[in-house]
């Protein structure tokens, strides 16, 4: 019963109902139109025939006189067919013809007797069982002549058309309903299985997929695109899981450190040491906030291709400014630092994010790429046919080949002892920024050292 109630609610059923009502109304209309027109057409045909006959009889009577009338009518009346003839006197007594009886009032006035009237034939049994249309005509001597035509045949024909139309339309309607219900049930079955699968997916099993019927119909296409979506969600979800694990893991140690420092600070008496201890707590907290900020920026950049603004700028000005910012540091630390930038490299970018990415790459190089006896770092901007390439090159220890694919992941730090400050998010952010600009981050060994390149497609 519940299943039935559910069928009543399906689109297939509703469409069927609508279809039935509309189709039924139209069909009934068509049947009535056809039968009405058939009847009218036949009666028009009869009128023409009757007119001709009346004219002919009148001509004969005029030529040969009224005495010829009775034999003429008797002769015609005996011919087989549906024609009616009747001659009556002014009292309504029937003198000749093939009509046995009829309503005498019809004979009083001349003219068409169009709405079909009833009359009795000689082969009827005493009742006025037949129907006809006729014309009444007054002849000299006040005789009434009625010429008409039995419409029984026409009405039978009309009924046949009527019944045939009804039958065929009825069959069509029934077939339609049957087909619709069949398809509806099929769709319902399919949807049932889709619903069951989606329940399992909602319950948390993202490895489930919606079933395909193999018919490649619209249901299959829908299920396929939903499956693609679920696959994407699954990937993202596992990414989120990995990430929240790393966040938990990587924030635990600084938070523990923070807690220990605070505990130690409680025990320090007032004075310079206390201030220093509190300052180091603030520094530690700032580092944690910076980590969160980097994480949030990464996820915003990853999510925000549509909302983050990009404006056309000259990248060489950014590179030159940043290069100048690092020149002093390089000189101070005896690093051979070079900035090689082509002039006027225009691209539509988010200036702040591109600057951030450049600074992250330089920071990495200055922090991890200076193991060489004569350290060199080069910042390059050049325009290639396909891409604009912004690269930072160092001759330090580089990254082992097996770690290259991994370093752009969040929280991955190759400095196992973690003695140097850093969150392990720098390259992740650069990677996200490059992808936001429809480009990518390329990491290559420099032997010795590392080449980090941001490729941004040329507009």
């Amino acid at each position, binding site marked *: 019963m519940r299943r039935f109630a559910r069928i009543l609610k399906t689109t297939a059923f509703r469409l069927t109902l609508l279809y039935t009502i509309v189709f039924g109304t139209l069909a009934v209309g068509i049947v009535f139109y056809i039968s009405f027109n058939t009847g009218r057409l036949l009666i028009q045909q009869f009128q023409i025939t009757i007119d001709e006959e009346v004219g002919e009889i009148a001509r004969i009577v005029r030529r040969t006189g009224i005495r010829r009338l009775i034999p003429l009518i008797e002769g015609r009346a005996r011919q087989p067919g549906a024609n009616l003839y009747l001659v009556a006197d002014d009292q309504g007594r029937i003198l000749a013809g093939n009509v046995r009886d009829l309503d005498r009032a019809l004979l009083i006035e001349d003219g068409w007797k169009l709405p079909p009237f009833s009359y009795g034939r000689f082969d009827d049994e005493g009742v006025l069982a037949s129907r006809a249309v006729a014309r009444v005509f007054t002849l000299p001597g006040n005789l009434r002549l009625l010429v008409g035509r039995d419409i029984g045949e026409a009405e039978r024909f009309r009924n046949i058309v009527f019944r045939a139309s009804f039958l065929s339309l009825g069959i069509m309607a029934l077939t339609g309903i049957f087909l619709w219900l069949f398809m509806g049930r099929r769709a319902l079955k399919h949807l049932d299985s889709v619903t069951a699968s989606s329940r399992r997916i909602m319950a948390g099993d993202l490895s489930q997929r919606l079933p395909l019927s193999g018919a490649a119909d619209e249901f299959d296409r829908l299920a396929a695109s939903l499956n693609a979506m679920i696959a994407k969600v699954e990937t993202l979800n596992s990414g989120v899981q990995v990430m929240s694990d790393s966040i938990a893991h990587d924030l635990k140690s600084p938070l523990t450190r923070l807690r220990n420092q605070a505990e130690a600070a409680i025990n320090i008496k007032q004075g310079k040491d206390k201030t220093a201890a509190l300052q180091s707590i603030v*520094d530690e907290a700032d580092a944690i*906030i910076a980590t969160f900020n980097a994480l949030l920026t990464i996820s915003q950049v990853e999510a925000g291709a549509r*909302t983050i603004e990009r404006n056309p700028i000259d990248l060489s000005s950014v590179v030159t400014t940043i290069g*100048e*910012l690092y020149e002093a*540091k390089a000189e101070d630390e005896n690093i051979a630092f070079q900035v090689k930038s082509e002039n006027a490299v225009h691209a539509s970018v988010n200036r*702040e994010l591109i600057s951030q990415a450049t600074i992250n790459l330089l920071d990495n190089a200055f922090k991890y790429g200076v193991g060489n006896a004569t350290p060199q770092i080069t910042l390059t901007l050049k325009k290639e046919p396909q891409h604009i390439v912004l690269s930072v090159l160092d001759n330090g220890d580089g990254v082992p080949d097996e770690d290259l694919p991994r370093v752009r992941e969040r929280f991955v730090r190759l400095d196992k002892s973690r003695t140097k400050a850093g969150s392990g998010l720098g390259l992740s952010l650069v990677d996200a920024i490059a992808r936001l600009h429809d480009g990518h981050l390329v990491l290559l060994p420099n032997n010795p050292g590392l080449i980090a390149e941001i490729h941004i497609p040329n507009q």
Partner: protein
Amino acid sequence: MAESLEILLVEDDIEQARHLVASLEEQGHSVTHVENGIVGLRHASTARFDVLIVDRMLPGLDGLSLIEKMRADSVTTPTLILSALGQVDDRVKGLRAGGDDYVTKPYSFPELLARVEVLARRRDAPNSDTTLKCGDLVLDRINHVAVRDGQKITLQPREYRLLEYLMRNAGRLVTRSMLLESVWDLHFDPQTNVIDVHVSRLRAKIDKGFETPLLQTIRGKGYQMQNPANDS
């Protein structure tokens, strides 16, 4: 101590606002705090404040709309926007709406205070003097040359801009990110010591060989040009 400022704080987080009001008042400023954007706009429109501090997310009327409406009414009070963490485009949007500066929560109070005081000063002192003075150091803004105690000091273009910014805000704390913004036009919290190198080079030029150091490092916060005239 810098001059006392009339500050309007529009912030709906009561805990943070209480903390901020207390800290600002401790610095000698007087603060009016409201929690609602519409009330904030009404106060701001009186134009009697030296600086506005406006949170982005507010009940009634959001911070950016508040600033836009206020600017449409030709109120030019310098305005600092507070925003949540990690919002990439917020700074640009905030400045476009008519804000003058921008700080991301959670901010460090010294950073916020430094920016508020610089903003207030920007209104008072039109930036048109041809020379800046700080003790016996004089900066010629036309020829981009500094002279200290009769000795001429040649400056690289970037050093000139650094010194000019520091001298214009003499007697006030200037943070690293403020320098990065005004001198290099780069907008983020510098996680590196790149600025320090530039400042110490500048210090070598203007302070080396003189008795009173003018450019001081405020540990963990930033830098400050001493203004001997005011210190007395």
